[in-house]
């Protein structure tokens, strides 16, 4: 049973603000979603290996060569705030 507190905790982990009225809506949605995916718990998967990637084990790797990276001007062109070629943020530490 999903509680409103569960929803608040998950939202916090996701860095999302959820208003009080939304909490109840999300709780209802979540209950339905879990009611649906809980089907998985009835499957017998003893001894089955997980598949993270369908072609795993066949990844072609390239040599690790030093190359030019993207110019700083290009990298910061979409920055919401920028100063001296850096991304500008609030002071993180006092």
């Amino acid at each position: 049973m999903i509680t409103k507190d569960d929803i608040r905790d998950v939202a916090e982990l996701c860095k999302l603000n959820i208003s009080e009225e939304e909490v109840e809506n999300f709780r209802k949605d979540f209950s339905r979603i879990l009611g649906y995916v809980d089907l998985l718990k009835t499957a017998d998967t003893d001894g089955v290996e997980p598949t993270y990637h369908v072609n795993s084990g066949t990844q072609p790797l390239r040599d690790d060569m030093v190359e030019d990276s993207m110019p700083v001007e290009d990298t910061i062109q979409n920055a919401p705030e920028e100063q001296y070629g850096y991304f500008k943020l609030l002071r993180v530490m006092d």
Partner: protein
Amino acid sequence: MDIIGLSARQMQEKLMDKELSARDIVEAHLERIEGIEPELNAFITVTREEALRDADDLDRKIRDGERLGALAGIPVGIKDNIITSGIKTTCGSKMLEDFIPPYEATVIERIKEEDGIVLGKTNLDEFAIGSLTDTSYFGATKNPVDLNRTPGGSSGGSAAAVQAQEVAVTLGSDTGGSIRQPASYCGVVGIKPTYGLVSRYGLVAVANSLDQIGVFGRDVSDSALILGTIAGHDRRDSTSMDMESIDYLDDLDEDIKGMRIGLPREYFDIDMNDGIRDRVMEAVGIFESLGAKVDEVSLPNTKWALATYYVLAASEISSNLSRFDGVRYGYRAAEYESLDELYMNTRTEAFGREVKRRIMAGTYFLSREHAEEYYRKALQLRTLIRDDFDRVFEEYDIIISPTTPNLPFERGAENDPLIMAESDTFTVPVNLAGNCAISIPCGDVEGLPAGLQIIGDRFKERRILKAGYAFERYLSTGGGR
């Protein structure tokens, strides 16, 4: 001349024969876009100036007798979750409303190298999460076959643009059916290639173990043509496979006598529209008349596919979308007093409801308390689903099914995400297994298009294209006469 009514390959022939210039082709399509977009909304951005400039460059190349690329003169639309250098790429989200990428996706580089002309960026569900193309920050797209219906999604803009003759071919992306389902609903051809056939460098990732870039066209040949130009290994995507380059148009018209076709029992046990079932069974009859051998086969783990997909996709979504934090690019909230508030206000203000729901569900599935029972369990079931397909493909060349169990939804109807998910019943297992599949129009039901899905083993695109081509030719010639 009805330029926009030509196939991509016909446009190209007329360009080579100097019956048409690249400018004629591009202008005709821009005019169509201008005329129909206010109603249809298949595009988020139209790149008019760039397209006309590219057309003039190409006409100069033709005058100078230079070598031309495989897509010379063909107008292309690009789903707006594929990065285009210098051209806004929004993912249909307020989060990236003004984002102008400083680099190019590999598929775009290849299209340009082959002289394809990009006319714009097509609409999608926000971050390609959805099945209706109605969660875009830039408004919903309509279905050109019936404007009261949805085009499907998430690549609804790409499917609608091809059906409405705004462009000849488009790129989309398919994580659980996002190319095949809208192709079916809009009555066009859509291909989801094998995982690893096409580079994902520059595709904004939502669920990277499932995402694959693919194509739309009005027929199999056009779709095969553009698929051939974007396929192949890319050193910038280590999940793209080292394959010899393949010309998918080669041998496309070989007959399919002796082809072994599997009809999965479990797919036909599912509730579906009777008309769609009839069209698909007629298709089975056509394949038999063309000399294919059709048997019932079993994919016993199909029943787990939708829930497995929901858990895996949401988990990957929650992880991928954590990069949108308002720091380096994209939206940043105007008001905040701490770094944490900056993250929270930015994400709360710029993500839509469905995206938030998936992020939260995925975070829950991945949390320490629940990862074992949901995420890991789903990864194990994915193995069983993939093994099902591998077993069938030991004996069969292709598998056929409907693309969707239902006809396109009416617009504005109650959008229940779990019911919407059911329309992905036949498409989702293919992404979980990493196989390739094509959706081809197989006739109408109540005046709306139905789609036939042809599934192939990994990296056996030629088989599904050959089968699709034979089927399409049979329909277009009214029985091969």
